[in-house]
């Protein structure tokens, strides 16, 4: 099973890289982009076949390493 983890900055945490992307888009002539928030995607190839156990394991990985929960949120997608 594959797990896809999306790590994004929490609301209220300033995202200077997102702001820079927004400015660059506007400089390229893309109008109407009100806000940009950037983050990262981490893909994990898992041997676990059981969905609940896989999700629980990835949840632990997010808390212990993949995300810094002081500033980041994470979301887990399991892909068969």
């Amino acid at each position: 099973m594959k797990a896809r983890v999306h790590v994004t900055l929490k609301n209220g945490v300033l995202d200077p890289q997102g702001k820079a992307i927004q400015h660059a888009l506007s400089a390229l002539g893309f109008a109407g982009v009100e806000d940009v928030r950037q983050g990262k995607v981490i893909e994990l190839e898992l041997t676990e076949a059981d969905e609940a156990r896989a999700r629980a394991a990835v949840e632990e990985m997010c808390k212990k390493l993949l995300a810094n929960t002081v500033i980041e949120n994470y979301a887990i997608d399991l892909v068969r």
Partner: protein
Amino acid sequence: MRSAVVVFPASNCDRDMMVALEKLTGRPPLKVWHGDANFPEVDLIALPGGFSFGDYLRAGAMAARSPVMREVIARAKKGVAVMGICNGFQVLTEAGLLPGALMRNAALKFVCRDVHLKVEESQSAFTNRYAQGQVIRIPVAHHDGNYFADADTLDRLENEGQVVFRYCDEAGNASMDANPNGSQRNIAGILNERGNVLGMMPHPERLIEPALGGSDGRGFFESLVEALH
């Protein structure tokens, strides 16, 4: 006073730290490799600046989970003095020994220059040789020094005297212009609740004698000698 400097892959201020500690404590520090969870008892553990593990995932994230850090965390909880400078500060927040996080500089640029710092707390083991409110000049060199914590945490840090250094101008005003990286409330260095763990982005070990361009960093090491001898 016995000290140890932890070295991670891609630490790059470990040697400066070793030189400063040897000169100002009178004893050569131990050098401890990141994979080494067993090292002799010391009075002070220093986590140096650099780009441990290439800043992969987040600055300090990998180093914070290395074998040596399990031991550093255990000793910090027993009251041993631990200090993290620059990347060391990032490692301490990632390890949960200090609150908050260090994010990409607000201007997205690596900043490398001298800054002024106001000593906000001169009662600590790390600052007792400075005067309360003293303004000192210390270099910074970092890309991820933008200190963030939620408002409740910031209020608690301020109320408990855990904000040790604040970026300021030459006259001691903690203005927006004097903030090199966007840190919340101009915070440059903090203590844990117990006062035995300190993290700061600026590098006191780089200014310990006039030949290096200044000696405002000396007081930092002299404070430790005073507190831990």
